[in-house]
């Protein structure tokens, strides 16, 4: 027991010996949360639109003004020549062209149903779909406004349309991707810091020869493992609290659910990253190797976590592989607690999976570590 105390004390002295570690602990989350939280966005905003108004009447102008007032669109200009419209889409000056036909106003008044033509840049299918949704919404609102002009028309419509849709988005009413992304970034920071600290920390002792020196002392390998785990888990927990603080300060996003539950789930997750770190240290002889292997595992667990790519979109085989990834569960848990305030009761399946894989990974790593030393 006393040996473990001295190991932990030594580790903390080394970590905080120079200022660079403190910098890593504070600056890395600050930069990642600030930049990534703003950069990684699935919101479709600032869609560039080019108009061709062949009608040039009060009705067509009112229609266009709906786009001017929308925060999703930027009007890049008006083009008179139909044949030149495609060049805007080709060059990327616009990703959407809207053509209002001649007699737009007349047809509306005569109830002849004018057609508006849309040319959409479909390279990014997701964004194209989302922008189409926005346009549908605008057209809808415009029609409602038209009905105010003719009471008898509005009566007619009311007879046809019996059901009105009133969608409400829960937990993230404005569908801001920030709210969805930021808890994921906290998970990534925790993964990176604990994984790299553990693997590099052990391999460094191998490199300089102190690990060998420790092995000729009466210290047991389990004491050595615990002596490494305690400081790195404390740092991990510290790191998650620092990250949550930055998230609150920068984005004003606070934890909806129980902070205690969040820390509890985090500690289970940390077991898996420490296990992975120890495992990496057993297959690497130099810090360079450890760095490389840690990167390899990090990229895999991030890409297969559902953070960037929804797991539901992956082929079934890959979907099964993601089940082995503790980060997958942890990101879900973090989002649930952060945004919905979900209680432990509804997180039991994820928690159990994470406990299982974390423990297996950790035990396998420790057994391998002890075998390597013995």
């Amino acid at each position: 027991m006393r040996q473990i105390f001295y190991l932990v004390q030594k580790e903390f002295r080394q970590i905080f010996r120079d200022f660079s570690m403190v910098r890593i602990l504070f600056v890395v989350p600050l930069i990642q949360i600030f930049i990534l939280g703003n950069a990684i966005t699935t919101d479709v905003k600032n869609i560039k639109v080019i108009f061709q108004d062949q009608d040039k009447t009060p009705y067509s102008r009112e229609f266009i003004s709906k786009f001017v007032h929308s925060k999703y669109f930027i009007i890049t200009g008006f083009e008179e020549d139909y044949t030149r419209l495609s060049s805007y889409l080709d060059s990327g000056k616009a990703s959407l062209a809207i053509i209002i036909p001649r007699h737009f106003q007349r047809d509306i008044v005569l109830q002849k149903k004018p057609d508006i033509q849309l040319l959409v840049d479909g390279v990014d299918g997701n964004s194209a779909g989302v922008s189409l949704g926005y346009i549908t919404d605008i057209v809808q609102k415009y029609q409602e406004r038209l009905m105010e002009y003719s009471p008898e028309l509005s009566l007619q419509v009311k007879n046809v349309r019996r059901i009105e849709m009133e969608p409400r988005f829960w937990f993230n009413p404005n569908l801001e991707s920030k709210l969805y992304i930021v808890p994921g970034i906290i998970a990534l920071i925790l993964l990176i810091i604990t994984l790299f600290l553990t693997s590099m920390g052990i391999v460094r002792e191998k490199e300089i020869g102190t690990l060998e020196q420790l092995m000729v002392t009466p210290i047991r390998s389990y004491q050595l493992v615990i002596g490494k785990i305690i400081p790195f888990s404390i740092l991990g927990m510290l790191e998650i609290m620092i990250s949550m603080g930055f998230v609150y300060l920068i984005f004003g996003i606070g934890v909806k659910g129980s902070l205690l539950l969040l820390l509890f789930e985090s500690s289970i997750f940390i077991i898996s990253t420490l296990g992975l770190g120890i495992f990496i240290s057993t297959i690497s002889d130099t810090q360079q190797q450890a760095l490389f292997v840690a990167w390899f595992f990090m990229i895999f667990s991030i890409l297969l976590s559902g953070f960037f790519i929804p797991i539901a979109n992956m082929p079934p085989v890959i979907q099964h592989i993601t089940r082995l990834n503790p980060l997958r569960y942890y990101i879900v848990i973090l989002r649930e607690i952060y945004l919905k305030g979900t209680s432990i009761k509804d997180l039991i399946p994820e928690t159990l999976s994470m406990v299982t894989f974390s423990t297996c990974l950790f035990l396998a790593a420790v057994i391998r570590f002890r075998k390597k030393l013995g």
Partner: protein
Amino acid sequence: METEIAVSASKLSRHFGAFKAVDEISFDVKKGEIFGFLGANGAGKTTAIKMLCGLLKPTEGEATVAGFSIRTGTAMIKKNIGYMSQKFSLYEDLTVKENIEFYGGIYGLSREEIANKTRLLLSELNLENMQNSLTRALPLGWKQRLALSASLLHDPPIIFLDEPTGGVDPISRRNFWRIIYEIANRGKTVFVTTHYMDEAEYCNRVSIMHRGKIIELGTPTGLKQKYDKTTMQDIFIHIIGQN
């Protein structure tokens, strides 16, 4: 009789694949002896010493250290030995005092013992002014002496030194050997590997290793008479040349 033997090896071997790094070596080291292990680089000295310290398992053969088998008694062996390798084994980013405290703690010394030992060591090594400096800042010769002291904190009866003076200047080496003598005078057994032949003269007995085998074993004086040479250097070159 058995209590008089500190280290004993019989047909101890370690193979790495087809390569026999240590090939059936046998010897006894008496208590209080300075036993030198000589040989060129790659002769198998470090592999042999690592087996005796419990860092490597032998492929064949048996050895006892402080009466405990290196196959079954490594935990007990570790309590009875000090070990210092050719690699500098202190933490360079800890201060001198912190290093002593750490190794003292690892060896299970109490807080007072650590405090006493620290005071004693710092005055012995003339490091009082440097106690709060990072170990990195010490000259190599001092680092080696500090590393040696750290490996002796738990007062072990047997000390293994694996090329302790590698890369150190002659004066520091002389000083280092003065400490080794003091240790031996306190009744401790010193098992030292080196490839400096002048250091071999300081040993009570030396064994010469070549390609995993012990090809000569005796006192420096005895060997000089046997081969009719005046220095260990000449003997070494003569014997290695023959093989």
